[in-house]
């Protein structure tokens, strides 16, 4: 099989305990495109990003980046490869002991030989792009959630990597910031020919920005197509998700025994469940 995508996933299975998060999925992500991963909460979107980043090892199957199977790389090669990749974590994950400026400078200090002047300019440009140049001397604990996420975004793109993985970049942003970030991601992608993979819940915004949408559900890839194709799809699961219908074939609930069974169970075990938060 010819390798054509910059990220190739073959026959991948991944388990948490006995629960299969992914069952034999195949995904091919094309270079230079914006691919949005969508799916109900808890289906494994973050997990998929971690598998791509090599932080989790698949139980079966393989992940190829730039045509190399990452499971077969040694630590040094993997670190080199990660220098060509930027990641925005769902929680931002700023380094709490560094200032905003130093956070954005971190990947540059690690992977480039820029002198102080060049580094300074580069960091300020990135911060300007997310509208936080004025916050450069603040510590992460003094930022709001949305600001922290924007700093993390600036940090993820600071190296101008070839692949960027964004885990919910728009969560917690006001409409203006959202529009700015959308444009930023799109501009980065168009100007530098980056490959962007981003996780999002917002259908309108995903359709606006995406070249391709991957819809995950129940451990499988439900659909992988252009936004237009998905919006006109006749597949019931795709329709349900794309149009935000509460009732349909996609289960909203975390796997559990039927409700009636639990409600009718013996009440002795209920007492055991008290406690928790006090």
């Amino acid at each position, binding site marked *: 099989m010819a390798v054509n995508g910059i990220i190739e996933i073959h026959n991948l299975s991944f388990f948490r305990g006995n629960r299969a998060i992914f069952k034999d999925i195949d995904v091919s992500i094309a270079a230079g495109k914006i691919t949005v991963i969508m799916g109900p909460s808890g289906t494994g979107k973050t997990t998929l990003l971690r598998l791509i*980043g090599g*932080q989790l090892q698949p139980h079966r199957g393989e992940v190829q980046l730039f045509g190399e199977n990452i499971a077969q790389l040694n*630590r040094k090669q*993997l*670190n*080199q490869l*990660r*220098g060509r*990749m930027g*990641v925005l*974590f*769902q*929680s931002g*994950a*700023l*380094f*709490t002991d560094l200032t905003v400026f130093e956070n954005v400078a*971190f*990947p540059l200090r*690690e*992977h480039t030989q820029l002198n102080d002047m060049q580094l300074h300019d580069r960091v300020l440009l990135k911060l300007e792009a997310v509208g936080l140049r004025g916050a450069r001397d603040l510590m992460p604990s003094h930022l709001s959630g949305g600001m922290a996420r924007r700093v993390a975004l600036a940090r993820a793109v600071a190296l101008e990597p070839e692949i960027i993985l964004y885990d919910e970049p728009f969560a917690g942003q006001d409409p203006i910031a959202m529009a700015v970030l959308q444009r930023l991601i799109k501009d980065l992608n168009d100007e530098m020919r980056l490959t962007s993979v981003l996780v999002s819940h917002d259908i309108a915004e995903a359709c606006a920005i995406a070249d391709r949408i991957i819809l995950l559900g129940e451990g499988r890839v439900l659909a992988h197509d252009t936004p237009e194709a998905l919006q006109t799809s006749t597949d019931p699961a795709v329709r349900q998700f794309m149009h935000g219908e509460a009732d349909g074939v996609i289960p909203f609930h975390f796997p559990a025994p039927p409700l009636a069974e639990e409600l009718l169970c013996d009440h002795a075990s209920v007492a055991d469940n008290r406690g928790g938060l006090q």
Partner: protein
Amino acid sequence: MINLVSALGGQLLQRLALLGQALLMLLQSLRVLPGKHGLSRLIQQLYVVGVQSLIIMLVSALFIGMVLGLQGYTLLSAYGSEQAVGQMVALTLVRELSPVVAALLFAGRAGSALTAEIGLMKATEQLASLEMFGVDPLHRIVAPRFLAGLICLPLLVAIFSLVGIYGGHIVAVDWLGVYSGSYWGNMQQAVDFGEDVINGMIKALVFAFVVSWIALYQGYSCVPTSQGISAATTRTVVYSSLAILGFDFILTALMFGGA
């Protein structure tokens, strides 16, 4: 009966596996030499682990020395040999109390802070994000903290001993009137550098190793939630204290026990 034995065996195997994991973490973190900013990171940690523990060490050492001076004087004057109080204070401190008390304080002050810090870094995905920048968190985060612990505690123990001896001096000589010459003279007669001071330092080094290792491993392997971190911090203090007292007995038996 068989169930009991197999449960015990299972427990033992589990403990051994944990120990192996902890050992692996340590070896991996120390595998590579520090990089270009290694020194400044080490200095940062020496500050956090050492300088910030200094005050509590100084105060404790002073009080312990004063108590030893007072107790020693009362005890020894019953035999008319209160001039030996210097020797008693010095030997007690140098051989036992300084390494043990300083290490216990160190576990409570610096060890618990290390565990909480690393646990929180894990919970906020900072360790994961280091990894994604191609930086090994063991090397970047764990190694400088471990080295700082290893360097600081022996020095803190030396300071502890000296301050304690001066504390004893304040009580015995300045307050109770023991002749200063016999305070120092008896001490110099009795304390041997190789046998007492160096052995005390060896204890300090062993304790430093054990406490830093426990603290870092607990942080690194904790469950990344608020309960997980608080449980790991508690474990650090409890395990470190037990390990300090246990190793102290073994080392004392090896160094001073027997002929």
